[in-house]
């Protein structure tokens, strides 16, 4: 055996030298004045469109081939489908998608401790060879066209091999070189800075219901990091994980004055205190001004406590628990549409109390009803401060002859419900009401109407909830009594659980988009309030369901489930 030793050692040392030589990073390139003859901003925008949407500067889809001979248009799936928005890649179904961001393309790749910086790598006692050298523009173009990296390694056949002109290639490479190149703002020294936003109308008790668990979590995290922190990772992943574990800091941004001024206030806060993301936040009103600010500032906002989120299929930066009131309206539409008995879906009328809650409920129903191919429901708007009287409901029933009335009104229409229950010819008229809008008054729903009124209920069944909500008490530390009616501390607890996982998954790649990417890759979570939180790339509403309930008889007024959590 010893006869072979010199040859093995020679190979070992040769590989070692190769690896050491590959440590040399390419010198930083000065920013070009133009890219492929285009101003830099324009090239950046075009590159982004190629990366995220698979559309060429010409407007045509990027053409590629996967699995050897399967042609794919960029509009079917794009680079960001697998490498994700921040470019740090993904792992799914046994296929590892490697990082393709600037910070990683510009340095050699190593199999061992690939996350170390060039400087950190010099500290290693044993220098490993690089799996590939840093990409040049030429080798990166070769990879994108052929799937082969500069060390001769062929990427998995699922990676598209792109047919790109030199000009288009230059634009895409420029984008990749700048993608997640430097850490996002809010990462200072060993600390990740966050903020939480509170709108002016929120009571002190509700503020504390969110702030107390949040601050307790941060204090515990920091205590842990001081005593343990990186040393824990050193034991697990060696130097590689060192630096992933950071202290956390939280600022509270309290907004003042009218909502129209909040955008400016938030911009001033952010300029003064650059933060990595917003955690939670609370408002009784519409979250839209804060949502819009986060889109503008490209600032993640994780699980604000709001029932009036922005409902968008394309916005990126705010991750909500659910679509709030809108989702209840959606559930009503789907339930009504799916009933075996077609009669209740015959003539539908929405009675909408003026205000954001009624608007959102009605919009959710309207959009979904239309999506289901149904004729638009008639709508009656109740001005602010007015209530639906028994006489008004009676007139409505006589005039429109509805089979179902959606009463997005709150408990002010309870007296009128008896009129609904009295109407038995030609068939009973059904109603819908929102549990969230009724709040604790739900149990007072008039007895005669209980069998006719369906309740949209956006949470786990109440009899099953206590054992899940009790988990949240661990972060209250006895200082505040959990209030089941507001669900503020429990939702904050859930936000923290998802954040904790997100911070670990983000590793040391402190890019705002990467945090959102990692959230999108999380497995389902069973936490307080909602039956299930589920995630997926770009999915921005984690709780997808809403039960339809009926109120049982008597003082007990138990809720009786009438539907699945998710209604198709």
């Amino acid at each position, binding site marked *: 055996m010893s006869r072979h*030793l010199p040859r093995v*050692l020679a190979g070992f040392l040769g590989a070692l030298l190769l690896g050491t030589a590959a440590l040399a990073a390419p010198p930083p390139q000065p920013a070009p004045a133009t890219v492929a003859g285009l101003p830099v901003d324009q090239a950046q925008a075009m590159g982004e469109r190629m990366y995220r949407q698979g559309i060429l500067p010409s407007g045509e889809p990027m053409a590629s081939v996967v*699995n050897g001979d399967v042609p794919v248009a960029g509009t079917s799936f794009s680079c960001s489908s697998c490498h994700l928005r921040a470019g740090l890649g993904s792992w799914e179904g046994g296929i590892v998608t490697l990082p393709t961001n600037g910070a990683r393309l510009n340095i050699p790749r190593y199999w061992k401790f690939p996350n170390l910086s060039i400087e950190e790598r010099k500290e290693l006692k044993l220098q490993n060879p690089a799996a590939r050298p840093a990409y040049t523009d030429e080798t990166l173009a070769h990879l994108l066209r052929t799937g082969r990296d500069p*060390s001769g390694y*062929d990427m998995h056949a*699922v990676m598209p091999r792109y047919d790109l002109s030199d000009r288009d290639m230059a634009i895409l490479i420029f984008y990749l070189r700048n993608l997640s190149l430097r850490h996002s703002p809010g990462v200072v020294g060993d600390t990740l800075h966050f903020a939480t936003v509170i709108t002016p109308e929120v009571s002190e008790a509700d503020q504390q219901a969110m702030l107390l668990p949040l601050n307790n979590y941060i204090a515990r995290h920091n205590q842990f990091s001081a005593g343990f922190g990186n040393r824990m990772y050193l034991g697990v992943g060696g130097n590689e994980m060192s630096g992933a574990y950071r202290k956390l800091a939280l600022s509270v941004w309290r907004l003042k004055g009218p909502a129209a001024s909040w955008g400016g206030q938030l911009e001033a806060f952010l300029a003064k205190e650059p933060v990595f993301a917003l955690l939670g936040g609370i408002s009784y009103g519409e979250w839209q001004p804060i949502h819009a600010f986060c889109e503008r500032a490209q600032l993640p906002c994780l699980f604000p406590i709001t029932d009036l989120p922005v409902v968008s299929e394309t916005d990126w930066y705010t991750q909500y628990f659910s679509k709030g009131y809108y989702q209840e309206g959606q559930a009503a539409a789907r339930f009504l*549409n799916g009933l075996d008995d077609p009669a209740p879906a015959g003539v539908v009328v929405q009675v909408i109390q003026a205000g954001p809650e009624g608007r959102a409920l009605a919009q959710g129903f309207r959009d979904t009803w239309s999506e289901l191919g149904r004729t638009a429901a008639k709508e009656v708007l109740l001005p602010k401060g007015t209530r639906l009287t028994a006489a008004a409901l009676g007139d409505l029933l006589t005039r429109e002859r509805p089979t179902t009335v959606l009463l997005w009104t709150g408990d002010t229409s309870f007296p009128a419900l008896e009129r609904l229950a009295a109407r038995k010819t030609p068939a009973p008229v059904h109603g819908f009401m929102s549990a969230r809008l009724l709040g604790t008054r739900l149990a007072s729903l008039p007895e005669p109407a209980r069998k006719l009124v369906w309740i949209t209920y956006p949470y786990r069944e109440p009899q099953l909830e206590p054992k899940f909500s009790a988990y949240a008490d661990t972060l209250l530390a006895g200082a505040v009594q959990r209030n089941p009616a507001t669900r503020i501390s429990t939702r904050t607890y859930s936000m923290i659980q998802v954040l904790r996982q997100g911070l670990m998954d983000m590793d040391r790649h402190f890019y705002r988009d990467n945090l959102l990417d990692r959230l999108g890759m999380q497995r389902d979570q069973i936490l307080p309030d909602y039956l299930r939180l589920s995630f997926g790339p770009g*999915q921005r509403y984690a709780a997808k369901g809403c039960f339809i309930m009926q109120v049982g008889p008597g003082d007990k007024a138990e809720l009786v489930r009438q539907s699945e959590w998710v209604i198709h």
Partner: protein
Amino acid sequence: MRRNPWSILLVTASLWLSGTGSLTAQAPPPYTRTLESYSVPEVVLVNQDGTKVKLQALLDSGEPVILDFIFGTCTTICPVLSAGYANLQTKLPAGSPKIHLVSVSIDPENDTPKVMRDYLKRYRAKPGWDFLTGRREDIDKVMRAFNAYIPNKMSHYPLTLIREPKTGKWIRIFGMMSSSEFLAECKKAGLL
């Protein structure tokens, strides 16, 4: 027992070198193919048009049918499987029997009929490709029936199931296929 330090070094170096040697090339892994018998559960799912579909009637009709499991926001596997479906639809020779392509969602909470319609549109799906969603419990039943159950959608794997019209058995293909391989498997199964 005292170990020879040279042998330890040799083993370490060999392992290390064998690891780096594998970097030079990697061919796409070949797929595996088995013949299986499955019992389709009696569940009612919902297709991209919001229409209720009895899965057993759909899959056991005797018509040529291919099944896979995907979800609308999947990062890696589903897009490639779906590109394969889309390509198969365009590659089918003129006059060949219609093949019913069925994709069952493994993210039924997010995959509403609208999400599924948009997904099919992205792949330029032609009639004959149905994307099905439904109650989570029913989807679990379907996955279990086809030995494809995964508790976490992010852990799913590439699976294509081709039903042999003559025998009613299923060709289970684990892995990714090229366009020519997919066509060849369809022919082998008697679909073309």
